[in-house]
């Protein structure tokens, strides 16, 4: 396959970026999108051009490192996959592919396609945990019976890998899907009840402080989420938040 790649290049956070066009030949349909980027970078280095910086780690769709806004969609045109699991067979020979970083005010560009997603870490630190004494007193996991339906929903919410596709794809750059998944995975379990009120208030407060936008229920996040996190979680977070406000 021969491709024309239009890629956002930005030297550093302070620099003014622009879209650069590169031609790439000999791309196999069996390559992953990141492998295609590796081939491009080798070509660029041979030409003495700075390679394109992009985030990646496990390349198995579970770490949440890779990002990229490909042809106007977070993680590209495929559904329920991250960029590392997107394959070049989804594109055609001669295609022009637009590649941009995930864009949101709270996700500033560090370099090229790499953005700073530590806003998510700060939201997690604000309440995305349960305080458990693990120093030899750990309770058996099965000692507290949990209904299958609740356990399944909690697990579904917990599959969120925090990649930021929801923010990138939302027209408002809202982080509601991410935060609601993190709130829900504990809200559904008895272990999460002790800190439930503080958790939702603190996490939402941190989310707002970071400058993410307001949710307008377009549902775009759910469609583009590589883990299929449901909008049901946002409704649950809203309930949790309202009841936490009432409880004070």
């Amino acid at each position, binding site marked *: 396959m021969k491709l024309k790649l239009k890629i956002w290049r930005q030297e550093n956070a302070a620099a003014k970026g622009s879209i650069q066009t590169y031609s790439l030949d000999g791309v196999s349909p069996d390559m992953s999108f990141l492998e295609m980027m590796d081939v491009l970078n080798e070509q660029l280095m041979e030409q003495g051009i700075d390679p394109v910086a992009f985030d990646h780690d496990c390349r198995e769709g579970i770490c949440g490192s890779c990002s990229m806004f490909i042809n106007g969609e977070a993680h590209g045109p495929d559904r329920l996959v991250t960029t590392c699991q997107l394959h070049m067979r989804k594109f055609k020979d001669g295609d022009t592919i637009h590649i941009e970083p995930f864009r*949101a005010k709270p996700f500033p560009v560090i370099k090229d396609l790499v953005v700073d997603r530590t806003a998510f870490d700060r939201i997690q630190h604000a309440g995305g945990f349960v305080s458990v004494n693990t120093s030899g007193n750990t309770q058996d996991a099965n000692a507290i019976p949990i209904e299958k339906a609740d356990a399944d929903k909690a697990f579904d919410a917990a599959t969120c890998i925090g990649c930021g596709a929801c923010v990138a794809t939302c027209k408002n750059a809202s982080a509601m899907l991410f935060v609601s998944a993190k709130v829900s995975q504990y809200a559904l379990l008895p272990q999460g009840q002790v800190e439930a009120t503080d958790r939702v208030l603190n996490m939402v407060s941190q989310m707002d402080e970071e400058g993410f936008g307001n949710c307008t*229920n377009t549902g*775009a996040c759910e469609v583009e989420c590589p883990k299929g996190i449901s909008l049901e979680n946002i409704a649950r977070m*809203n309930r949790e938040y309202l009841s936490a406000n009432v409880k004070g």
Partner: protein
Amino acid sequence: MGVLLSSTILRKVAMALSGLFLMLFLLQHFAINITSVFSEEIFNQFSHFMGINPIVQFLLQPVLIFGVIFHFVMGFVLDIQNRRARGTRYAVYKGNANASWVSRNMLISGATILAFLALHFYDFWVPEINYKYIEVLPEDPNRYYEELVHKFEDFTRVILYVISFFFLALHLSHGFSSSFQSMGFNNKYTPVLKSIGKVYAIGIPAGFAFIAIFHFLNH
């Protein structure tokens, strides 16, 4: 007000509650207006009651006007905040790949309805206030039907109303189910609720358009 603007979720809930209130009002407005198609007398009776009842005039009407202004102002404020949250725009953004046009453009449908409201207030509310509180003309319980019919003799006005009702239908088709989601309602009844929302979003504006066209054709 400050509390409402302090949290993204409370802003959502405020939009949802004001939207639901306006939808309830719309239902009541339609229920009265549709009587004009069947009976001049019943329409006049209802209108007269609404026009002179002090609870409607001095409690519900100000609350309604506040609800309308709040919903619009909040809508614009939220949109400005949302644009700021994106920062740099994407060169290529495929919005239609994952969300409907209607859900992404509530501001456009909302602004169209706002423009319509200006016309609608000029047509009915301003003359009504003038009649009752400025010129203080003698109360006539049978004037309402004639005033309504007279407005819809004008073809341009009927067209403008019908176009506005189309945008109202678009706005409601997202707004109805969205308001329940914002308030935390998303469960096994959601598909049923969405269906009711579609019926409401098409039925009410289509009904209003029917009333306007009916009176135009009949007179």
